[in-house]
């Protein structure tokens, strides 16, 4: 019984839950905001890069591959710190949430580019030939015939990757972005109690479990019969 009380006091102390709930909710809205902006910017920039790559210009190709490999190889935290502490030295001052958004968007774009590119490559060559043989231009064939097929193939890996990277909004805590984890650790250091951290964890579950479930649903919907 004593152990039960100790557990409750450590992780689920009622008065602390009441006291810090507003902070955690604020953190949730910050996390949602950044995550949504990261998904929009990251996926569209990644798609744009894949489309540019499909033009097969050697120069563009080299630039994209270098960017993609670097962004995928570095831990996102390293990039966050470099950009946040490095850019002011060259006179560029970005607010911390902008740094977080920028870095995560670039990382997601790098992964998304690879996924879209693999999707474009996996569409059989005969699809291009059939489309072009009816007089469609390169870009008409790309947008009406190739991409719709490529995108369906990319939905499962892209969903997984997007979830993995949006969770990295938690990295914002090291540069003071007031997202969920930042709110929770701040509250923890004031209350000397792990309850706010547990609230933070629950907040992540509340946000991401539906996304994970939605991802699974989208995967099954898009897992589509090939002729």
């Amino acid at each position: 019984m004593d152990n039960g009380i100790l557990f409750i006091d450590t992780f689920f102390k009622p008065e602390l839950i009441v006291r810090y709930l507003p902070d955690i909710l604020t953190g949730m809205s910050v996390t949602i905001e950044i995550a949504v902006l990261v998904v929009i910017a990251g996926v569209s920039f990644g798609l744009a890069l894949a489309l540019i790559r499909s033009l097969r210009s050697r120069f563009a190709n080299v630039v994209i591959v270098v960017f993609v490999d670097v962004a995928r190889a570095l831990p996102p935290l390293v990039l966050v710190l470099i950009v946040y502490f490095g850019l002011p030295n060259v006179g560029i001052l970005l607010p911390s949430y902008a740094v977080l958004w920028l870095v995560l968007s670039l990382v997601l774009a790098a992964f998304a580019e690879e996924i879209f590119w693999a999707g474009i490559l996996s569409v059989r060559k005969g699809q291009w030939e059939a489309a072009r043989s009816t007089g469609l231009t390169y870009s008409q064939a790309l947008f009406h015939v190739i991409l719709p097929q490529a995108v369906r193939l990319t939905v499962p890996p892209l969903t997984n990757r997007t979830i993995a990277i949006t969770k990295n909004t938690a990295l914002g805590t090291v540069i003071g972005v007031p997202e969920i984890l930042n709110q929770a650790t701040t509250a923890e250091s004031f209350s000397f109690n792990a309850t706010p951290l547990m609230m933070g964890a629950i907040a992540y579950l509340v946000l991401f479990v539906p996304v994970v479930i939605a991802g699974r649903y989208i995967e099954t919907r898009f897992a589509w019969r090939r002729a």
Partner: protein
Amino acid sequence: MVSARRNLILEVRGLRKSFGGTEVLKGIDFAVEPQELVFIIGPSGAGKSTFLRCLNRLEEPTDGSIFVDGIDLLHPKNDINATRRRIGMVFQAFNLYPHMTALGNVTLALRKVIGLANAQAEAIGFAALDRVGLKDKARAYPNELSGGQQQRVAIARAIALEPKIMLFDEPTSALDPELVGSVLAVMRDLQASGMTMVVVSHEMRFAREAAHRVVFMEDGLICDEGPPAKIFGPEANARARKFLAGIAR
């Protein structure tokens, strides 16, 4: 440069094609008259498919000239997309767009290349599907169709654009034997309606019965050509006879 004989639908002169250092087509001269059905036969590796694919520039010829209905296909100023509309192509693997219905497959180029409104494109699309006997499958997706039906949709997709000439690249090779007949019947129909056709195929019986002319290709060159009676008969070139004896069933 203007086509020498204006009544030709297709005129090819000195066509060459190399892949890397390998010359696959070694100088082909070839002409097709309106409403002609020309069969191209020959051993695998002879360059038949490459030749056909050069005729709408899916493969870029290395040298030579191609005129389609008087248009210089290889001229730098030629709008290849506009010309391709006039050259229907049917592939061995059908290559239907799997994310579109049969009607969607047939109408895509009508809408995007010719710029027709949806209603107009669909009317033409239904008519084209009707011609291949698949009007009732207009709303079906390719994976809901048999191989023979898919190939007929692919033919409808090509004829909807009212091509001057149709190229068939082994149209029945990927089909189960019992489905071949339906595709050949559609091709017969096209022939009867006056369509000009160049067919790469191993359907020798169809060639014998339907072709106006049979071309025997080997090793990147046309070795012999003539009416079926000649190519399938004793006066054919020795290599053609040897090839045909080898595949006689």
